[in-house]
C-alpha cells in the first residue's frame, strides 16, 4: 500500500470530518457552548437520508456512481438535521438560563434523546444504503491509489458545500452578521443585528452540514445509532486543533485530523507497533498535545 493511497483515504475521511467540524465550530462560536449533541445530529441526518433513499432509491440516472435518488436523500437528510436542530434550540436551549456550562451538560441529554429515538425506531444494529459497491477507478491504480467513484463523490460534494459556506460567510449579509456575532455578540446586538435570528441560521447551517457529514459517513462505512457519538470526539479534536470558534481553522483541523487518522497504518509500516485500532486514540492524544502547547489552536485568536 503506497503513501498516496493513505493520502487518498485521508482526503475522503477528512471531507466528512471537515463538514462536521465546521458545524460544531459555528455553533461553538455563536451559540457559545460545546455542543455534545452534534455527533448525534449527524446520525439524525444519516438515518433521514436512509429513509428517503429507501423511498426514491431508483430515481433516474446516476452521477459519480451514485443514483440521483441518493442526492435527493442527502438533501432531505440535511433539511431534517437542520429542522431537528432548530426545534431543539427553540424547545430546549432557548428557555434555559444557565450559562454555557449548563448548556453543555444539557446537550448531552439532547444527544442521548436523539440516539435513543433512533434506536427505538431503527434498532441498534448497523444499516446500509444498499448502493452497489464500486470497483476502484482504473486510471488511478497505476499510482497505487484504490479509490472508488463514491469516494470521489464524497470529496467533491464536501468541497462544494465548503465553498458555498465560504461564499456565504464572506459575501452575504447573513455571513457578515454571523462573523460579527462570533467576534463580539454584544457589539453585534447594539449595531442592530437581530442576534436571535442569526443564531437560528447558525443552527440551520451547522446542523445541515452535520447532516451531510452523517449521510457521507453512512455511505463511507455504515449507519448505526452510535455512529455520530463515536466520531464526535474526533470532530472535537479537529475543532480544537483548528482553534475553537474559527470556521477556517475547523476546516484545516478537520483536514489534518482526517489525514492523521488514515495515516495510522504508516506507523506500523515504519515499525512502530501501533495498530489502526488506535487511530481515534491518536487523534485525542494530538488534541491534548495541542491544548498543552497552543490552547487556541492553529487559527485561533491569541488570548482567551
Amino acid at each position, binding site marked *: 500500500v503506497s503513501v498516496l493511497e493513505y493520502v487518498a483515504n485521508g482526503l475522503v475521511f477528512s471531507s466528512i470530518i471537515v463538514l462536521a467540524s465546521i458545524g460544531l465550530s459555528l455553533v461553538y462560536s455563536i451559540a457559545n457552548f460545546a455542543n455534545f449533541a452534534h455527533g448525534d445530529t449527524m446520525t439524525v441526518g444519516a438515518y433521514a437520508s436512509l429513509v428517503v433513499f429507501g423511498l426514491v432509491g431508483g430515481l433516474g440516472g446516476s452521477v459519480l456512481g451514485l443514483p440521483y435518488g441518493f442526492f435527493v436523500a442527502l438533501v432531505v437528510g440535511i433539511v431534517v438535521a437542520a429542522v431537528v436542530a432548530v426545534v431543539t434550540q427553540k424547545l430546549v436551549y432557548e428557555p434555559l438560563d444557565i450559562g454555557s*456550562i449548563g448548556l453543555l451538560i444539557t446537550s448531552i441529554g439532547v444527544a442521548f434523546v436523539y440516539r435513543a429515538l433512533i434506536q427505538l425506531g431503527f434498532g441498534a444494529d448497523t444499516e446500509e444504503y444498499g448502493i452497489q459497491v464500486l470497483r476502484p477507478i482504473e486510471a488511478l491504480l497505476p499510482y497505487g491509489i484504490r479509490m472508488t467513484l463514491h469516494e470521489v463523490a464524497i470529496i467533491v460534494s464536501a468541497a462544494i458545500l465548503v465553498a458555498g459556506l465560504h461564499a456565504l460567510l464572506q459575501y452575504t449579509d447573513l455571513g457578515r452578521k454571523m462573523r460579527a456575532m462570533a467576534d463580539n455578540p454584544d457589539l453585534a446586538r447594539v449595531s442592530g443585528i437581530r442576534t436571535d435570528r442569526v443564531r437560528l441560521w447558525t443552527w440551520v447551517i451547522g446542523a445541515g452540514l452535520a447532516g451531510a457529514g452523517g449521510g457521507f459517513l453512512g455511505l463511507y462505512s455504515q449507519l448505526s445509532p452510535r455512529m455520530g457519538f463515536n466520531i464526535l470526539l474526533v470532530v472535537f479534536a479537529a475543532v480544537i486543533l483548528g482553534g475553537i470558534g474559527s470556521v477556517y481553522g475547523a476546516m484545516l483541523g478537520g483536514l489534518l485530523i482526517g489525514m492523521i487518522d488514515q495515516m495510522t497504518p504508516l506507523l506500523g509500516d515504519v515499525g512502530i507497533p501501533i495498530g489502526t485500532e488506535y487511530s481515534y486514540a491518536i487523534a485525542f492524544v494530538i488534541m491534548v498535545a495541542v*491544548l498543552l502547547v497552543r490552547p487556541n489552536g492553529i487559527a485561533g485568536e491569541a488570548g482567551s
Partner: protein
Amino acid sequence: VSVGERGSGVLSGLTPTERGVVGFIGLLSLLLIYGLVTGGLGPTYFLYLLGLVGMYVLLSFGLNAQWGYTGLINFSVAAFFGIGAYGTALLSADNSPIAGGISPVVGLIVGLVVAAAVAVVIGIPTLRLRTDYLAIASLGLAEVIRILVLNQRAYTNGSAGLRGIPSFFEGWPVLGTFPEVMPTLVVERLVFTIPGLVEFELFGFTLGQGFWQALLNVTLIAVLVAVTYLFLRRVHTSPWGRVLRTIRADEDLAEALGKNTYSFKMQSFVLGSVVMALAGVFYAHLNLFVSPGDFEPINTFYVWIAVILGGSGSNRGAMFGGFVVIAIREGTRFLGDLLPASLPVAMPDALSLVESTYATVVGNFASTRLLAVGLLIILVMRFRPEGVLPPQRELIWPGATDEPVGSAEPGGRSVSADGGERDE
C-alpha cells in the same frame, strides 16, 4: 448534617423539598419491603442493589469533589472507576494475565495510586484551560483508556474481561470465612387464605452463603461511604474547601486573592478521581467480573445525573441521586420484565400508532433507559438546575446554624461556573 437532623426527629425543620425527598425514599422503601415480603425480590439481590446504590453514592461524592466543589467538568468518571476496578482485578483475578492471587487490600492501594497518577497526567494539560476544554479532553482521554484496555490483550485480557475475582475480605482472619460459617436460614413460604376473598403468599426464600456475602459487601460499602462522607465534609468546610468554592464561583477572584488556583484544582481533581477509583475497587469485588464495558461513557453520565439531580456540591443530594440512578437502571429493567409485550387492551385502528409505539418502547429497554437518562438531564437543567437538594446547611459549620440562613448561599443557585457568559 442530615443524619443529625433526622436524629432529632424534627420533620418540620425540613424544607418542603427535603420533605418530598424523605417521602420519595419512604415510598421506595415501602415498595422494596413489599417486594421482599411477597418474595418478588430476593434478599440477596436486594442487598446487591443496595451495594450498587452505595457504589453510585461513592462515585457521586467523587464527582461532587470535582464539579460540585470546584466546578471542574470531568467526563472521565468511567475511566477512573474502571482504573480502580481493573487495578484490583488485575492483581487478584484468577485469569489475570499479569498477576493473580494477590490480596485485594494491595489491589485497593494499587488501584487508588494508579488513579491518582492518571488524574495528575490528565490534569496537567487540561486544568489550566477553560473548563469546557476539560470536558472535551477528559471524555477523549477516557476513550483512550477504554481503547487501551480493550486492545492490550496481553495485559488486560481485552474484551474477555477478568473473571474469578475474590471477595474483598478473602484471606482476612474472621471476615474472610464469615459467609461460609454462617448457618443457612430457610424462611418458609407462608400462604394466607381469607376464604372467598384473597389468597396471598409471603416470604419463601433461603438465606445462604450468597446472602451473607452480600451482607458483608453492603457493610463494606456503608463503611466506605460513611468514611468518605465525613472526610469530604470535613475538608469541604475547611479553608481549603472555601478556596475551592471561590474558584467555582469566580476563578479570577481566587487568583486575585493570591491563591494558586491550578494547584487547588489539581488537588480537587485528584481527590475526586481517587474516590471514584475506590468505588471501582468495590465494584470489582462485588461483581467478581470486570470488562472493558465498565469504561463505557454512559456510566460517566449516570454519575452526572446523580450529581446534578441531587444538587451540585451537595453530598446529601449525591446520596439521593445514587438511589435515583439505581431506580432508573433497575426500574426500567424490572418494568421491561413486568409489562406485557403488547397493550393489554385492544386499540381502535386509529390508535394503532400508540400500540406500536408501546410495543417498541417496552421491547427495547436499553434504548428506553437511554431516553429516560437524556430526558432527565434536560428536565433537570430546565426546571431545577440547582438540583433537588442544593447545598444549604452543608456549607456551614455545625455550631453556627442557630442564626437564620440567608438566601445568599455561595454556590446555591449558580450552576454556571463561568458567571453566565451567555449573551442574549
